[in-house]
């Protein structure tokens, strides 16, 4: 099985994807997150410093979104509460390595964590911020939410011969098949 078709051990969630839970038009990403968040076999991860910073800016987020702080906290608890956090010191070496693989320094912790947990996927709306080619050579795929279902479907088809399905159904069946594939 090639590197590009390896089952991801972890999915690193970029902040812009996390914030999709607060954007009205982002139903697809919300559905995707809802399914991923309850999967036991796939680790969803964020750097701890990001979670801390989101919590520190909850009042600003409230002001800009118009959502009450309590509502925001409930939504964030439901999402961030199910995502594994890693202290930046746990992957400091990888952050240094990642500095050359991102276009903005502040994306280095995401790429660094992805390197630490490879084979992995960075789920983001800003693929252009990452050097996808070099990251992929190191076992890290950079994908937008709309690409993840197809990617998992491809992983499954390499491992098992299954009928193609579409959209969210593809993702759900894919995740269940990944699980049975592991067994």
């Amino acid at each position, binding site marked *: 099985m090639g590197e590009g078709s390896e089952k991801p051990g972890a999915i690193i969630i970029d902040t812009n994807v996390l*914030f999709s839970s607060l954007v009205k038009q982002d139903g697809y990403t919300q559905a995707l997150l809802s399914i991923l968040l309850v999967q036991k076999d796939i680790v969803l991860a964020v750097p701890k410093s990001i979670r801390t910073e989101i919590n520190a800016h909850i009042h600003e987020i409230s002001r800009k*979104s118009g959502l009450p702080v309590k509502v925001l906290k409930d939504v964030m608890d439901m999402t961030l509460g199910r995502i594994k956090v890693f202290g930046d010191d746990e992957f400091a070496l990888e952050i240094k390595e990642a500095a050359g693989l991102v276009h903005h320094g502040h994306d280095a912790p995401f790429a660094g964590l992805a390197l630490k947990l490879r084979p992995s996927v960075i789920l983001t709306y800003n693929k252009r911020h990452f050097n996808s080619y070099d990251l992929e050579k190191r076992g890290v795929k950079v994908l937008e939410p709309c690409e993840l279902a197809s990617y998992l479907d491809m992983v499954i088809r390499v491992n098992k011969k299954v009928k193609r399905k579409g959209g969210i159904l593809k993702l759900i069946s894919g995740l269940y098949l990944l699980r049975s594939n592991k067994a």
Partner: protein
Amino acid sequence: MAAKIELEIPREVLEHAKDSGISIEEFRKSLEIFGTMQLASETSRLDRKKADAMSERIKARSWEKARKNLGL
């Protein structure tokens, strides 16, 4: 405190899903999360552009602190 809403799903659909190996408990949890996000975002003023800008600012501030802590 949590509030409950009832959902009706055709029995045949539910049985078919169970027979296909889908865990109804996991599906219920997914629906809870999805419903919470949908209800919250329906009244949100954030669009994708504003959310991206806010995300970038938060990442930049977080990175400033992390760099200092890690001595980078």
